[in-house]
Each structure stands twice: as structure tokens, then as C-alpha cells.
């Protein structure tokens, strides 16, 4: 199993839309795919029309009184399952802290039994720096970091890369990609170009800011499903092809 996590400290940068579309594309390729909506807001669950509720809440999952397996729901699409969000996930930091030894490795341990059942797991993280995000980084093989092309977001990427580099043992591969790119803004174009030239691990495919992507919350489906030929869907497909490879050195 390969675990992908969409992460950014900031909210509203396109984490969930990326997770939903890439997970769908993975499943459409025939890979058995699980998407875990870790965000208590439950946006990914909403997009798949699944109630953001887990029996027993986050506590039952973290403490192991309920296995992840029991909480998983089938989406409308073949090979794609979802582990729904739950409002109690807002306390996940505390739950993880109580979870005993190595609290930063708890999610990785919980996910281990999923290895036989799925080829790809996507973790859609809430925005923050917390024990949850640290857990996600330890569990993930690939960190997908959406960046809005601003100077500040580049700094955030640097911080994240440094943080991950400090891990002892296994480190996730970091793939940043530009998100909500507005082609009309000169600054967006410059930053996109410069960073792609300067840094490794920055995807060549940007995800543009498009109203079609915003429509997902109306259609309640991945854009790759309801508008498969749209620019947005094409961008996600290109990104998916790219992030399955190793970043160029």
C-alpha cells in the first residue's frame, strides 16, 4: 500500500479537492483506494454524499475499540471507499496524546491492517500544525502539499521540508503542487515558474483556480466524474500521473 496525504498548514488551499479527485483517479485506474477524511469539517465526506459520522467517534477508532474496517463506507465508485469524518476528530490531538507510547506514530499503526486491502490510501488532513499532522507525516509515503503561489507559502514549504528532514528513520517524499493558480496574476506566474526551476519536488502541473472545481460542492462529486473533459479534470489527471513518480533529483 502507498499512503498519500494532502497537507497544508493553511486552510482553503485545495487540499480536499485534490484528495477527492486524486483518490477517484486512483480508483478509476483499478487501484483499491481508501480516502480517510480526517478533517472534522467533513468536506470530503460531504462531496461523496456520505454522512460525516463514525460510530463511537474518533475515540473508538484511536483507542481501537472499533477498527477502521468497521467504519469504512463504499462510495458510489468502484474500488473507492471512504472513512468518514466525525465531529469528534476536532479532539484528535488529545486522543492521540492519550494513546500511549509513540503518540506520533499512532495513525501509522492504525493504518497497518489496511495494507492488505488497499493499494492506495489518501489522508485528507485538517489545516494546522498539531499532533494529528505530525502523525500524518509519519504515516504517509507521499506528502502532497498544495501551494497558493505567494511568497509566504513558499516559506511554509521550506519549513515543512526542514521539519520532515529532521525525522529519524523513514521520511515521506514531499511533492508540492501549485493550487488555485490564477493565470491573470503576474505574481502567480512568476512564483510558479521560479519555484519549479529552483526546487525539486515541485510538480510541473498546476491546478488552476476554476469555478468548475468550486462546482464540486454543488454536484457533490469529483470534477473528474461530472466534467471529465474539463480543464480542471485534465489538470488533476496530469498531476496524478506526475505524483505517482519519484520527484526528479
Amino acid at each position, binding site marked *: 500500500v502507498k499512503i498519500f496525504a494532502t497537507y497544508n498548514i493553511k486552510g482553503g488551499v485545495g487540499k480536499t479537492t485534490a484528495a477527492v479527485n486524486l483518490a477517484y483517479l486512483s480508483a478509476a485506474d483499478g487501484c483499491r483506494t481508501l480516502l480517510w477524511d480526517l478533517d472534522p469539517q467533513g468536506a470530503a465526506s460531504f462531496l461523496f454524499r456520505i454522512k460525516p459520522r463514525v460510530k463511537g467517534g474518533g475515540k473508538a477508532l484511536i483507542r481501537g475499540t472499533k477498527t477502521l474496517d468497521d467504519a469504512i463506507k*463504499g462510495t458510489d465508485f468502484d474500488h473507492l*471507499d471512504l472513512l468518514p469524518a466525525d465531529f469528534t476528530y476536532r479532539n484528535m490531538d488529545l486522543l492521540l496524546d492519550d494513546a500511549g507510547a509513540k503518540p506520533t506514530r499512532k495513525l501509522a499503526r492504525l493504518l497497518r491492517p489496511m495494507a492488505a486491502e488497499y493499494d492506495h490510501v489518501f489522508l485528507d488532513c485538517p489545516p494546522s500544525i498539531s499532533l494529528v499532522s505530525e502523525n500524518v507525516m509519519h504515516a504517509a509515503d507521499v506528502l502532497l502539499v498544495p501551494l497558493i503561489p505567494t511568497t509566504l507559502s513558499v516559506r511554509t514549504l521550506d519549513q515543512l521540508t526542514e521539519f520532515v528532514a529532521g525525522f529519524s528513520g523513514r521520511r515521506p517524499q514531499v511533492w508540492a503542487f501549485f493550487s488555485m493558480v490564477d493565470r491573470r496574476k503576474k505574481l502567480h506566474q512568476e512564483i510558479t515558474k521560479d519555484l519549479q526551476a529552483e526546487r525539486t519536488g515541485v510538480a510541473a502541473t498546476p491546478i488552476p483556480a476554476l469555478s468548475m472545481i468550486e462546482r464540486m460542492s454543488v454536484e457533490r462529486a469529483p470534477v473528474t466524474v461530472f466534467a471529465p473533459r474539463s480543464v480542471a479534470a485534465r489538470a488533476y489527471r496530469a498531476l496524478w500521473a506526475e505524483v505517482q513518480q519519484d520527484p526528479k533529483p
Partner: protein
Amino acid sequence: VTATGLREFVADTAAGEDSSLAAVESALSQAFTVRQEPGAAGSGTHRRTWLDTFDWRLYKAGLTLRFEQARRGGRLVLSKADGTPQAEQPVTSWPRRPGLAEDLPPGPVRDRILVLTSPRALLPIVRAVSTVTVTRLLNADGKTVARLVADHVMVTAPAARNTAADTTAELPLRLTVAEVRGYPSQARKAAGLLAGVPGVSQASQSVFTAALTALGRHPADYTSGVEAEITATMPAPVAVARLLLRLLDTLELNVPGVLSDIDTEFLHDLRVAVRRTRSAIKLLGGVLPAGLAEHFTTEFKWLGDATTPVRDLDVHLLGFPALTGQLVAASPAELEPLRAFLARRRAREFRRLAAALRGPRFRAITQDWRKALLEIRDVDGPRRRRPSAVALALSTTARAFRRIAAKGSAITTDSPPEALHDLRKRAKELRYLLEFFAPLHDPVAYRKVVSDLKQLQDCLGEFQDSEVQRHEIHDLADAMLAERAAPAATLLAMGEIAAKLALSQAEARAEFAARFARFAGPAGQERVRVLLEGRA
């Protein structure tokens, strides 16, 4: 559709498939939004073929094997009778002709069925063409919470003979509620609604079983055993006629398979039926009308002889891998000219055999024989006084046993091989008598006697087969030399094989005394006495 927890129903489509589907959808719309899902996974046309050997070896082992055709190639799926999957493997194509398991590419299905089915071919038993439509059942959020899979199945049983037409039948519409993971209660609800639709009922049979029923085929309807329907009090001529008719049925059932050269067991079973018939005529023919036995003795001898050359070559070819495996000095490649020679000979002999089986003499034998036997079975009046079936069974079996005991006891280490060959024939006759009258015997006593007898027969068989094969190797060597088809290395390898055979023969000879003592000694005699007198 990759959902688990299937719930299957059948719909009585007497009022038309569309109207019964409409009734189903209207029932489901009480709780769900019902939406067609064109192009859903699993929808469209599917072709499946269920395979088994002529004698239903997979079925008898509680297994079913199907080939699921895909756009390119397909896959073989082996499952238990209840549908539990056992193994599957992709295959690029399933040959039009029935194939042998050993011809399959390596894979888990081949591994599971090879020993079970060899040397029999896998024949298509039922072909099914399914037209599948998938309907989504949505909840108030528009989320798919279950699926209804409707399967319209047409089934065909391939004709046994090339000349006959295939049988086709339409199965009742099959409706399956497929669960979506995490929504078990919704699937239960849908199944409950479905069960309430008039004309819809739980499917009690698998598609395969339903197809067999619809096509009028009975699983395991072929067995190479005797299993005649006889009773103890039946007049002996009637019992013998029933027995011989049963053997004739078996003989005739195997003819198409022999002629199509599907696998070597068809000819084997046909020959066993002929041998049993000849033994029955010889040992029991006394109760048949005068003249009948004499005529058919000649005819069945002709038939038996006509089948011998091909069978002998089959035995050589089937045993070839084992043969080459035994070589110590020579290499298997050096025996290849022998294999090629055997294959050429077989092709030639097979043409002769096929001509005989298609010819007038064979047709006359089977037709006249059946007519005569039916007359005895059905028209046999109560005028003559005759023994009962059980009396005939006991007297002939006791005589056959006494004969073996006497002949076997006379065999010493100095006896010529012919003495053992003769004893083998007598043992075979006794075995046939036991099998013919098996329904009249106590099963436990029967099994004990047959088990001892089988040990003796195996030993005698090994002795004689080794000798015959050794002589055949010599003859083959002569024939190959005459045709200039024998390199020196091949002849040397054949010499090594002949030596091995001589060794096996000597071993069998050494074992004979012990096996015979077990069968005909005091304990063996007691077992036979229990068998015969327990009934008398």
C-alpha cells in the same frame, strides 16, 4: 459490481420481463430513488462456460469450474458447490476443442484440478450468456446505498454428438441485491422489499444448478461402474438382461467421445464395458435363450480386438513421461523417436478403429443386442422355471472363487508365466461377478472381499503388464528398425526401459505368494463364506 453480501432472487417472468422489472422498481421506490446505471461495472453481456470431465469428476469432488470469457481471453474460476471461490487464473483462450488440464498454463486452478481430472478432458457442460443491468438505489442524499443487479440468463448444453442440435433454455430473471460497503441495513431493506413483490422468490439454486435443471441434465449422470438395477428375487434371465443392457448403455455413451478422440478414457471405459459384457456372456450366458450367447461371443470378441491396438498405444503414450523419468543411463531426449513412432502408429490405428465403430458390423451388434436383451427383460414370461437372480449370483461367484483357489494353489516358483496370466483372467472374472451382483450383497462383506481381490489383481496385473510391455518394446524396436526410425541411442534407451520392466515383473512375482495367501487362505475363505452365506 464489487459489493459483498449478495442476496439473490428469481422473478417469475411469465407476465413478461419488463412488467416484472417494473413491479420490482416500483416496490423499491418506496424507500429509494431508483436509477439505472448504464455502463456500471459488471453490466452488459457476459459469457460463461462451466466445465467438467465426462464422468463429472469435479462435481463429484464438490467443485465447479467455469471459464469467464473477457474481451481478450478470460479467466478460469474454481469454486465449491456453494459458490465459495477456491482458485482462479487468467487464460488467454479456452480452446474450441475440449482441453486437458495439463494443457493449461501454470496457475492455481491447474494445480488444483490436474490430478483430479487427468487423463480426462474438460468438456463444456453448460454455456451461459448473461445480459446484466445494474440499477442504483439512492438514499435521500443521492448516495448509492445498494445496487440491484438483474441478470437475464440464456443457457445452452452442447450436443453430445456433432450431428445433434444444442439444447437451449431461458432461466427465470435473476435479481441480486448487492450491498455497498458500510450500508448493510439498506441492502437488507431492499431485499425485504424485493421479497414482497408477487412472483419474486429467493433463488434456491446457483445459476449452474438451475441451468442443469432447465436443460434436463442430471449431474453425475455418467459413471463407469456397473450399477445395474437388479433385485434378489428377480428371475435370473431378467437380471442378466438388465445387467447387459446397462453395460450396453455405457458402451454406447462412450462412442461419440471415442470418435471425437476427446480423451483416452472414453475408449478405456468402452473396452471395460465390452470386457464385462464378454465375461457376463461367458459366466451367466447359460440363462439366456439358446444361440444368443454363441453369436454375441464372437461379435464382442471382434469389437474388443478392434479396440486393442489404440488402447495399447494410449497406455504407452500416457505412461511415457513416467517412463522417461525412470531412465538412469539414457537421456529422455533419446526416447523422443520412440514417442513420435508411437504417435504415428496411434494415428493409423485410430483411423481403423473409427472406421470399425462407424461401420455396419458395429451398428448391427449394438442394435441386435439391445433388441434381444429388451425382449428378455420385458417379454420374458413365467412359463419356464428359472433360478432367481440371487441363486445365480451365489452359484457363479462360489464357482469362480473355487476355481481361483485351485489354480492359484497350484502355482509354484517354477510355474510358467502363463499360469499367472490365466489366474489373472479368472480373478478378473470373479471381480466382474462381484460387481454385477453388488446390489445383492452385504456392503461390508463385499468391500472386504473386493479389497483382498484387488490386491491380488494389482500384483497379477503388474506381473503381466510388465511382461507384455517388455515384449512390445522388443516388437517396437524391430518395427522402428524396419522403418529406419531408430537411432542407436534410442534403441539403447529402450533397452534400459525393458530392463526396468523385467525388474518390476520380478518384484511382482516375488509378492504373489503373500497376496494370494491373503486372498485364498483361511481368513480370505472365511470372508468369502460370510459374503455368500450371509445372504444364503
